């Protein structure tokens, strides 16, 4: 096996491995976004999702040979950055954490300090 042959085979395998790893990354980030537990955690997840998408778009650009995909990646990076900034502003103006919001609920048991939504403590 000569070096050029090895290089070509390695290139193809590297593309496949990279695609598999990025798919795994998407899955893990989405688990974090679903599990939360708070809004900023989800926003951080969105940030990583944008990074992973940019990486995936670059990979698609390499595979298909269309370097026009770089422009898509730049636009996605811009939108992702603006989304994170907008979410940060939203968190700041909302001014309360999920815990605060939960404490204001009318049906909450005043003794319970936990976030669990069962009403075990309210029975006399």
């Amino acid at each position, binding site marked *: 096996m000569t070096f050029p042959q090895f290089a070509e085979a390695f290139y193809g395998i590297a593309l496949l491995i990279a695609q598999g790893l990025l798919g795994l990354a998407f899955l893990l980030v989405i688990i974090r976004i679903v599990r939360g537990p708070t809004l900023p955690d989800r926003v951080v997840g969105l940030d990583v999702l944008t990074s*992973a998408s940019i*990486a995936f778009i670059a990979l698609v*650009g390499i595979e298909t040979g269309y370097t026009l995909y770089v*422009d898509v990646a730049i636009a996605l990076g811009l939108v992702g950055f603006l989304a994170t900034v907008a979410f940060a502003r939203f968190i700041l103006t909302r001014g309360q954490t999920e815990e605060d919001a939960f404490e204001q609920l009318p049906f909450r048991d005043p003794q319970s300090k936990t976030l669990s939504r069962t009403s075990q403590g309210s029975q006399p």
Partner: protein
Amino acid sequence: MSEAIFDTIDGILMIGGSIFVVLAAVGLLRLPDLYTRMHAASKAGPVGAGLLLLALALNAGSSAEALRAVAAILFLLLTAPIAAHLLAKASYKVGYGLWPGSVLDEMPRVRNPEGEDPYYDEEGSQTGLALHEGQAGEPAWRRETKDRRPRWSDLRKR
């Protein structure tokens, strides 16, 4: 021959970049609180995406396209810390706490103008070991602002 070398470098960059992205995602899942997760999100993520864009730049035919990919990398590295900084600042001001296992918190809480705040030190920043999670009572400014939604002016008074 040179094409083969470029292909090999490309392959290494692709695998390395995607490994960084996966480890950013693993860090996001495994690290205990918001601020430590932000470390994974703001470092490993952009570096991984940057390595893949670099592979694209090496793969591109013309210099203009390679230059655009390099510009995209610079843009990514410039915006990631700003986004992380804004998000960390906003969530800290609103009151999302540190992980209980944290060892130090020297940042002052938002001060309530009227009531006394056990976590605010008149000297300013050097409050030492004042983790607001796990300490007795609730910060005064949070009790105070419970009746109405806090406004911008509350958050800016320090």
